[in-house]
Protein backbone atom coordinates (compact mmCIF):
# COMPACT_ATOMS: atom_id res chain seq x y z
CA UNK A 1 0.00 0.00 0.00
CA UNK A 2 1.53 3.26 -1.08
CA UNK A 3 0.30 6.49 0.54
CA UNK A 4 2.10 8.44 -2.20
CA UNK A 5 -0.24 7.10 -4.90
CA UNK A 6 -3.27 8.04 -2.83
CA UNK A 7 -1.80 11.47 -2.02
CA UNK A 8 -1.37 12.06 -5.77
CA UNK A 9 -4.99 11.07 -6.27
CA UNK A 10 -6.02 13.52 -3.55
CA UNK A 11 -4.07 16.35 -5.25
CA UNK A 12 -5.90 15.57 -8.51
CA UNK A 13 -9.27 15.53 -6.76
CA UNK A 14 -8.59 18.93 -5.16
CA UNK A 15 -7.77 20.36 -8.60
CA UNK A 16 -10.87 18.78 -10.16
CA UNK A 17 -13.15 20.25 -7.48
CA UNK A 18 -11.62 23.68 -8.09
CA UNK A 19 -11.99 23.44 -11.86
CA UNK A 20 -15.69 22.58 -11.77
CA UNK A 21 -16.36 26.07 -10.35
CA UNK A 22 -15.41 28.03 -13.47
CA UNK A 23 -16.69 25.17 -15.66
CA UNK A 24 -20.17 25.15 -14.15
CA UNK A 25 -20.92 28.83 -14.75
CA UNK A 26 -20.28 28.50 -18.52
CA UNK A 27 -22.52 25.51 -19.12
CA UNK A 28 -26.10 25.13 -20.28
CA UNK A 29 -28.62 23.97 -17.68
CA UNK A 30 -28.44 20.24 -18.41
CA UNK A 31 -24.65 20.19 -18.53
CA UNK A 32 -24.42 22.33 -15.41
CA UNK A 33 -26.45 19.74 -13.52
CA UNK A 34 -24.00 17.06 -14.68
CA UNK A 35 -21.12 19.30 -13.60
CA UNK A 36 -22.60 19.69 -10.12
CA UNK A 37 -22.98 15.92 -9.85
CA UNK A 38 -19.41 15.40 -11.07
CA UNK A 39 -18.13 17.89 -8.53
CA UNK A 40 -20.05 16.14 -5.75
CA UNK A 41 -18.50 12.82 -6.73
CA UNK A 42 -15.01 14.35 -6.67
CA UNK A 43 -15.75 15.79 -3.22
CA UNK A 44 -16.78 12.32 -2.05
CA UNK A 45 -13.53 10.82 -3.38
CA UNK A 46 -11.57 13.62 -1.73
CA UNK A 47 -13.20 13.04 1.66
CA UNK A 48 -12.61 9.29 1.45
CA UNK A 49 -8.95 9.86 0.53
CA UNK A 50 -8.43 12.23 3.47
CA UNK A 51 -9.81 9.57 5.82
CA UNK A 52 -7.82 6.76 4.26
CA UNK A 53 -4.52 8.67 4.27
CA UNK A 54 -5.04 9.65 7.90
CA UNK A 55 -5.75 6.01 8.72
CA UNK A 56 -2.46 5.07 7.04
CA UNK A 57 -0.59 7.59 9.18
CA UNK A 58 0.13 9.92 6.26
CA UNK A 59 -0.65 13.63 6.13
CA UNK A 60 -3.30 14.31 3.47
CA UNK A 61 -2.09 17.10 1.18
CA UNK A 62 -4.36 20.15 1.52
CA UNK A 63 -5.99 21.90 -1.43
CA UNK A 64 -4.12 24.85 -2.88
CA UNK A 65 -5.89 28.20 -2.40
CA UNK A 66 -6.15 28.50 -6.17
CA UNK A 67 -5.22 26.58 -9.31
CA UNK A 68 -4.07 28.03 -12.63
CA UNK A 69 -6.47 27.09 -15.39
CA UNK A 70 -4.72 25.96 -18.60
CA UNK A 71 -6.75 28.50 -20.62
CA UNK A 72 -9.52 30.99 -19.93
CA UNK A 73 -12.92 29.33 -19.56
CA UNK A 74 -15.00 31.97 -21.29
CA UNK A 75 -17.66 29.92 -23.08
CA UNK A 76 -19.44 26.56 -23.21
CA UNK A 77 -16.90 25.02 -25.60
CA UNK A 78 -13.98 25.86 -23.33
CA UNK A 79 -15.91 24.61 -20.30
CA UNK A 80 -16.64 21.25 -21.96
CA UNK A 81 -13.02 20.97 -23.09
CA UNK A 82 -11.69 21.64 -19.60
CA UNK A 83 -14.22 19.26 -18.02
CA UNK A 84 -13.07 16.51 -20.38
CA UNK A 85 -9.41 17.20 -19.62
CA UNK A 86 -10.02 17.30 -15.87
CA UNK A 87 -11.64 13.87 -15.99
CA UNK A 88 -8.87 12.49 -18.22
CA UNK A 89 -6.21 13.76 -15.85
CA UNK A 90 -7.97 12.44 -12.77
CA UNK A 91 -8.48 9.10 -14.52
CA UNK A 92 -4.74 8.94 -15.23
CA UNK A 93 -3.83 9.54 -11.59
CA UNK A 94 -6.23 6.85 -10.36
CA UNK A 95 -4.95 4.44 -13.01
CA UNK A 96 -1.41 5.06 -11.76
CA UNK A 97 -2.61 4.16 -8.26
CA UNK A 98 -3.80 0.69 -9.35
CA UNK A 99 -0.40 -1.07 -9.28
CA UNK A 100 0.37 0.58 -5.91
CA UNK A 101 -2.78 -0.68 -4.25
CA UNK A 102 -4.46 -3.94 -3.24
CA UNK A 103 -7.86 -5.05 -2.02
CA UNK A 104 -10.19 -2.23 -0.94
CA UNK A 105 -7.80 0.52 -2.06
CA UNK A 106 -7.50 -1.03 -5.51
CA UNK A 107 -11.25 -1.39 -5.71
CA UNK A 108 -11.61 2.32 -4.87
CA UNK A 109 -8.99 3.26 -7.46
CA UNK A 110 -10.71 1.17 -10.13
CA UNK A 111 -14.13 2.62 -9.35
CA UNK A 112 -12.67 6.14 -9.51
CA UNK A 113 -10.84 5.46 -12.80
CA UNK A 114 -14.05 4.03 -14.23
CA UNK A 115 -16.31 6.90 -13.28
CA UNK A 116 -13.78 9.52 -14.42
CA UNK A 117 -13.62 7.69 -17.77
CA UNK A 118 -17.41 7.60 -18.04
CA UNK A 119 -17.68 11.33 -17.27
CA UNK A 120 -14.95 12.13 -19.81
CA UNK A 121 -16.99 10.24 -22.41
CA UNK A 122 -20.16 12.14 -21.47
CA UNK A 123 -18.34 15.49 -21.77
CA UNK A 124 -16.94 14.52 -25.17
CA UNK A 125 -20.44 13.59 -26.32
CA UNK A 126 -21.81 16.94 -25.16
CA UNK A 127 -18.96 18.71 -26.94
CA UNK A 128 -19.67 16.72 -30.11
CA UNK A 129 -16.21 15.09 -30.00
CA UNK A 130 -16.06 11.86 -31.98
CA UNK A 131 -15.21 9.21 -31.04
CA UNK A 132 -16.41 9.89 -27.51
CA UNK A 133 -14.48 6.92 -26.15
CA UNK A 134 -10.78 6.09 -25.92
CA UNK A 135 -9.41 2.52 -25.98
CA UNK A 136 -7.38 2.82 -22.75
CA UNK A 137 -8.85 5.38 -20.34
CA UNK A 138 -6.22 6.90 -18.07
CA UNK A 139 -3.30 5.81 -20.22
CA UNK A 140 -1.16 8.48 -21.79
CA UNK A 141 -2.21 8.74 -25.42
Amino acid at each position, binding site marked *: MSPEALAAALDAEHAAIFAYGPIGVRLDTASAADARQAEATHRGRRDALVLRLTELGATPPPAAPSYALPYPVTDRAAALKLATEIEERTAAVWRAALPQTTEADRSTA*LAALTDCA*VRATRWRRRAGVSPATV*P*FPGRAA
Partner: protein
Amino acid sequence: MGAAVLGPISGCGLFGDEEEKAPPPAPDPLAPLLTEALSLAGQHEAAITAFPVLADRLTPVAQAHREHATALTKVIKAPAPSASASPDPSASPTPPGGDAKSTLAALRSAEVKGQKSAAQACQAAPADRAALLGSIAAARATHLEVVR
Protein backbone atom coordinates in the same frame (compact mmCIF):
# COMPACT_ATOMS: atom_id res chain seq x y z
CA MET B 1 19.85 -64.14 -27.92
CA GLY B 2 16.84 -62.61 -29.63
CA ALA B 3 15.90 -60.71 -26.50
CA ALA B 4 19.35 -59.16 -26.25
CA VAL B 5 18.99 -57.80 -29.72
CA LEU B 6 15.47 -56.52 -29.21
CA GLY B 7 16.20 -55.10 -25.77
CA PRO B 8 17.78 -51.79 -26.75
CA ILE B 9 15.05 -51.19 -29.28
CA SER B 10 12.20 -51.47 -26.80
CA GLY B 11 14.29 -49.78 -24.11
CA CYS B 12 14.92 -46.63 -26.07
CA GLY B 13 11.38 -46.79 -27.26
CA LEU B 14 9.68 -45.28 -30.20
CA PHE B 15 8.06 -42.75 -27.88
CA GLY B 16 11.19 -41.69 -26.03
CA ASP B 17 11.14 -38.25 -27.62
CA GLU B 18 7.67 -37.48 -26.39
CA GLU B 19 8.51 -38.30 -22.81
CA GLU B 20 11.11 -35.54 -22.80
CA LYS B 21 8.67 -32.85 -23.85
CA ALA B 22 7.64 -30.38 -21.14
CA PRO B 23 4.03 -30.52 -20.01
CA PRO B 24 1.85 -27.82 -21.60
CA PRO B 25 2.02 -24.56 -19.62
CA ALA B 26 -0.92 -23.75 -17.38
CA PRO B 27 -3.29 -21.32 -19.09
CA ASP B 28 -2.73 -17.70 -18.17
CA PRO B 29 -5.42 -16.33 -15.84
CA LEU B 30 -6.07 -13.62 -18.43
CA ALA B 31 -6.81 -16.10 -21.22
CA PRO B 32 -10.60 -15.88 -20.67
CA LEU B 33 -10.41 -12.08 -20.80
CA LEU B 34 -8.59 -12.26 -24.13
CA THR B 35 -11.25 -14.61 -25.49
CA GLU B 36 -13.91 -12.21 -24.25
CA ALA B 37 -12.23 -9.19 -25.89
CA LEU B 38 -12.14 -11.02 -29.23
CA SER B 39 -15.74 -12.09 -28.81
CA LEU B 40 -16.85 -8.52 -28.01
CA ALA B 41 -14.97 -7.21 -31.05
CA GLY B 42 -16.61 -9.89 -33.20
CA GLN B 43 -20.08 -9.08 -31.88
CA HIS B 44 -19.70 -5.38 -32.66
CA GLU B 45 -18.29 -6.14 -36.11
CA ALA B 46 -21.19 -8.48 -36.86
CA ALA B 47 -23.64 -5.79 -35.74
CA ILE B 48 -21.98 -3.27 -38.06
CA THR B 49 -22.24 -5.70 -40.97
CA ALA B 50 -25.91 -6.33 -40.26
CA PHE B 51 -26.77 -2.67 -39.55
CA PRO B 52 -24.39 -0.32 -41.38
CA VAL B 53 -26.28 2.61 -39.86
CA LEU B 54 -24.61 1.70 -36.53
CA ALA B 55 -21.09 1.86 -37.98
CA ASP B 56 -20.27 5.36 -36.71
CA ARG B 57 -21.21 4.40 -33.18
CA LEU B 58 -19.81 0.89 -33.02
CA THR B 59 -16.60 1.03 -35.07
CA PRO B 60 -14.51 2.79 -32.38
CA VAL B 61 -15.86 0.33 -29.81
CA ALA B 62 -14.97 -2.69 -31.95
CA GLN B 63 -11.50 -1.21 -32.50
CA ALA B 64 -11.04 -0.70 -28.76
CA HIS B 65 -11.81 -4.38 -28.12
CA ARG B 66 -9.26 -5.36 -30.80
CA GLU B 67 -6.66 -3.11 -29.14
CA HIS B 68 -7.47 -4.70 -25.77
CA ALA B 69 -6.95 -8.14 -27.29
CA THR B 70 -3.59 -7.08 -28.71
CA ALA B 71 -2.47 -5.65 -25.37
CA LEU B 72 -3.63 -8.76 -23.50
CA THR B 73 -1.83 -11.01 -25.96
CA LYS B 74 1.36 -9.10 -25.22
CA VAL B 75 1.18 -9.63 -21.46
CA ILE B 76 0.04 -13.25 -21.64
CA LYS B 77 3.13 -15.45 -21.64
CA ALA B 78 1.69 -18.54 -23.24
CA PRO B 79 1.14 -18.27 -26.99
CA ALA B 80 -2.46 -17.37 -27.63
CA PRO B 81 -4.48 -18.97 -30.41
CA SER B 82 -3.93 -16.52 -33.32
CA ALA B 83 -5.33 -13.81 -31.12
CA SER B 84 -4.66 -10.48 -32.73
CA ALA B 85 -5.58 -11.05 -36.36
CA SER B 86 -8.49 -13.36 -36.96
CA PRO B 87 -11.92 -12.63 -35.59
CA ASP B 88 -13.27 -14.97 -32.97
CA PRO B 89 -14.97 -17.79 -34.87
CA SER B 90 -17.55 -18.22 -32.12
CA ALA B 91 -18.82 -14.66 -32.43
CA SER B 92 -18.51 -13.14 -35.86
CA PRO B 93 -20.24 -15.57 -38.22
CA THR B 94 -23.46 -15.40 -36.25
CA PRO B 95 -25.48 -12.48 -37.58
CA PRO B 96 -27.36 -10.70 -34.82
CA GLY B 97 -31.01 -11.66 -34.71
CA GLY B 98 -33.78 -9.09 -34.59
CA ASP B 99 -33.56 -5.40 -35.31
CA ALA B 100 -30.94 -2.76 -34.57
CA LYS B 101 -32.55 -1.97 -31.24
CA SER B 102 -32.37 -5.51 -29.91
CA THR B 103 -28.84 -5.83 -31.30
CA LEU B 104 -27.78 -2.77 -29.31
CA ALA B 105 -29.43 -4.21 -26.21
CA ALA B 106 -27.49 -7.46 -26.65
CA LEU B 107 -24.25 -5.52 -27.12
CA ARG B 108 -24.96 -3.52 -23.98
CA SER B 109 -25.43 -6.61 -21.86
CA ALA B 110 -22.25 -8.11 -23.31
CA GLU B 111 -20.39 -4.91 -22.33
CA VAL B 112 -21.84 -5.01 -18.81
CA LYS B 113 -20.69 -8.61 -18.43
CA GLY B 114 -17.31 -7.72 -19.91
CA GLN B 115 -16.86 -4.80 -17.55
CA LYS B 116 -17.55 -7.08 -14.60
CA SER B 117 -15.02 -9.69 -15.67
CA ALA B 118 -12.34 -7.08 -16.41
CA ALA B 119 -12.93 -5.45 -13.02
CA GLN B 120 -12.60 -8.83 -11.31
CA ALA B 121 -9.39 -9.54 -13.23
CA CYS B 122 -8.03 -6.11 -12.23
CA GLN B 123 -8.87 -6.73 -8.57
CA ALA B 124 -7.06 -10.10 -8.61
CA ALA B 125 -4.09 -9.06 -10.76
CA PRO B 126 -0.46 -8.60 -9.75
CA ALA B 127 0.77 -5.00 -9.78
CA ASP B 128 2.27 -5.18 -13.27
CA ARG B 129 -1.09 -6.00 -14.87
CA ALA B 130 -3.41 -3.87 -12.76
CA ALA B 131 -3.25 -0.67 -14.82
CA LEU B 132 -3.94 -2.37 -18.15
CA LEU B 133 -6.86 -4.31 -16.72
CA GLY B 134 -8.22 -1.19 -15.05
CA SER B 135 -8.21 0.64 -18.36
CA ILE B 136 -9.98 -2.26 -20.06
CA ALA B 137 -12.67 -2.34 -17.36
CA ALA B 138 -13.11 1.44 -17.56
CA ALA B 139 -13.25 1.36 -21.38
CA ARG B 140 -16.03 -1.22 -21.30
CA ALA B 141 -17.96 1.02 -18.89
CA THR B 142 -17.61 3.95 -21.31
CA HIS B 143 -18.92 1.79 -24.17
CA LEU B 144 -22.30 1.79 -22.43
CA GLU B 145 -22.41 5.56 -23.01
CA VAL B 146 -22.20 5.18 -26.78
CA VAL B 147 -23.73 1.77 -27.51
CA ARG B 148 -27.30 2.98 -27.38
